[in-house]
């Protein structure tokens, strides 16, 4: 991906200089090691601010939706990994944006790193992070560690089978080889194999440190509801305190609302300050969507998602 950034900058500069797009949304360097920040550029003079590396873990489709775009705005270019592009497709399919509003600068992605896994290699705080090809050099006050990127990839990147954007206007690099997996949902199967009590205990433990900051929801491109159900007050569907029933209700309902829509981009887990693997909820629904409907979200523009389509050939009786 090292070489992609030059192409991303050149494409961005060209689009802005020619006025093809009004702004380019991408990633810029952060103020601390292993941090990047989403940025919107409006001038071709600024494109040097753009970066693309293994810590661009958020999903930029989150910055383009009905809520964030005004209809008067011109075309917007988005730097998109495979998952970001799939969420842009989902936005289009769900009528949040039109295809014409968006210019997709596709990035063939080699995965994002798990910052917590890297932090766990150190007893003290990380002071430096450098990336050269597939080698990462991480420093703290006490030591320097060199690791292979492949060994510290986020779980969603390790099981990703859509590294290349399925829909794009231009690619900023040659497509990477897509992996095929014999057991793509091993993690889900492990949880499903637990007996009922163990499974309940697993999920209780999973969310026990949730602080309800809603970073998972707010980092998710799917969560564009004008008012989320947890924020409704009349009627109020769920208590707002730290009662565990209320906390789990939030997580369960949010996950169900993502059924057949989630691209497993991992932004929710990336954003969570407590490092809760909320993907344990959404992954099960992704698996169901695949097994029951042969559906993976965000791959094509011309097909309705299984949960918002009616088919006379539906195999289930209840709907007929």
């Amino acid at each position, binding site marked *: 991906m090292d070489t992609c950034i030059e192409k991303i900058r050149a494409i961005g500069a060209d689009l802005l200089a020619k006025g093809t797009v009004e702004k380019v949304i991408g990633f810029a360097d952060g103020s601390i090691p292993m941090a990047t*920040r989403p940025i919107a550029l409006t001038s071709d003079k600024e494109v040097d601010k753009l970066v693309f590396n293994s810590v661009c873990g*958020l999903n930029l489709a989150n910055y383009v939706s009905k809520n964030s775009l005004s209809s008067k705005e011109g075309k917007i270019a988005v730097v998109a990994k495979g998952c970001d592009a799939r969420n842009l497709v989902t936005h289009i399919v769900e009528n949040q944006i039109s295809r014409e509003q968006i210019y997709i600068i596709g990035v063939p992605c080699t995965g994002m790193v798990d910052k917590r896994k890297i932090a766990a290699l150190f*007893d003290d*705080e990380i002071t430096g992070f450098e990336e050269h090809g597939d080698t990462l050099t991480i420093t703290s006050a006490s030591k320097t560690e060199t690791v292979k990127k492949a060994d510290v990839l986020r779980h969603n990147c390790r099981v990703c089978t859509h590294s290349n954007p399925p829909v794009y206007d231009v690619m900023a690099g040659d497509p990477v080889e897509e992996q095929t997996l014999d057991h793509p949902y091993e993690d889900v199967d492990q949880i499903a194999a637990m007996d009922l009590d163990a499974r309940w205990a697993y999920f209780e433990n999973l969310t026990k440190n949730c602080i309800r900051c809603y*970073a998972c929801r707010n980092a998710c491109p799917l969560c564009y509801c004008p008012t989320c159900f947890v*924020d409704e007050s009349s009627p109020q569907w769920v208590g707002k305190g730290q009662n565990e029933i209320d906390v789990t209700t939030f997580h369960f309902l949010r996950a169900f609302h993502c059924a057949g829509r989630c691209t497993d981009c991992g932004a929710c887990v990336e954003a969570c300050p407590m*490092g809760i693997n909320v993907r344990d909820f959404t992954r099960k629904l992704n698996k169901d969507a695949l097994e029951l409907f042969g559906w993976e979200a965000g791959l094509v523009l011309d097909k309705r998602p299984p949960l918002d389509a009616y088919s006379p050939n539906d195999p289930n009786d209840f709907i007929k």
Partner: protein
Amino acid sequence: MNFITIDKKDWAPGIDKSRKTFRVYGPVEDENGCQIKPLAPDTAPKMDAPVTVMSAKSVLFPQTEKILTATLDESKQDHHVMTPVETDDMPRVVLGIRPYDAKAVQLVKLNFDNPDYQDPYWCAAYEATTFVGLGVTHPGPCDFSTAVGCGPFSEEGLDVLMADMDDKYLAKILTKKGENWVAACGFDTEADPKESQVLFDVLRKEAEKQIQTDLATDKLAGKTILDLYDAPFWDDVAFSCINCGTCTYVCPTCWCFDIQDETRHNTAVRFRNWDTCMSSLFTHHASGHNPRGTKVHRVRQRFMHKLKYFLDKYDQGIMCVGCGRCVASCPVNIDIREVCNRMNDYETTK
């Protein structure tokens, strides 16, 4: 007895001894990292913990706190009359907190305990709590405590300040509360006050040197609220913000709360929950109007409160102790140091 040494062999047994009179809190580690929590029996605090994700503010100001209850049973004479729950007066000690977390309690105190208003729940918890800090010998890249009138060996708000000397702790007893806790643990090995103070000074200077930050707050007081409010950079600051509550919840000085009533059968309970100015609900009026209807409004509010309104109202510096938790945890890397410098440097062209 100003200074004592505590052999690390005696540390855990001493804490256990103190449990007769104190509920003990300290850093504990689980799969989500290190947090300040009540220590289970036989558990020692993880003294070499990295910065805890959350501060120690919840010890005095729990995220969800029951404050009033009422019965809805109309056969009872006092039905629907809210009565306060008993405040929790059990003495407690918070071990191994970083000095900036104790300073933060002093800032939060301005809100919960002042001449106009004393919050009974917070005040009772404050009275009952002893803060035992551990000096930070290796401040991390997010720590800018020295730039905001605090520091890795700051004593403000602490009852005891300890320094890690490999096989022992050197402890400076700062208050009567500190003395009581030390006595409850049975720690009584006196250390030479002069030598000990010199050691503390050396450690403090060494630690302070490691904090490199160019944060400036000197010009904030001289600016008008409206100039800063109308500054042109807020759209830019807010662009990446996803409006989650992380920065406010991890902040040791954010004190806002929301009141919620919940009923179950014939019992009504009034809770207070931490609130966050990042949420649109924070200012959503019953009329439907929202004076802070966009995320730019909300992001501006957070920084204006911390860096300008607080400063103007209390004249005690900014509402920040430089712990850097918001910097470390922000999913989109909004860095309060950068925003503060932009505000401090801003010159209106009007």
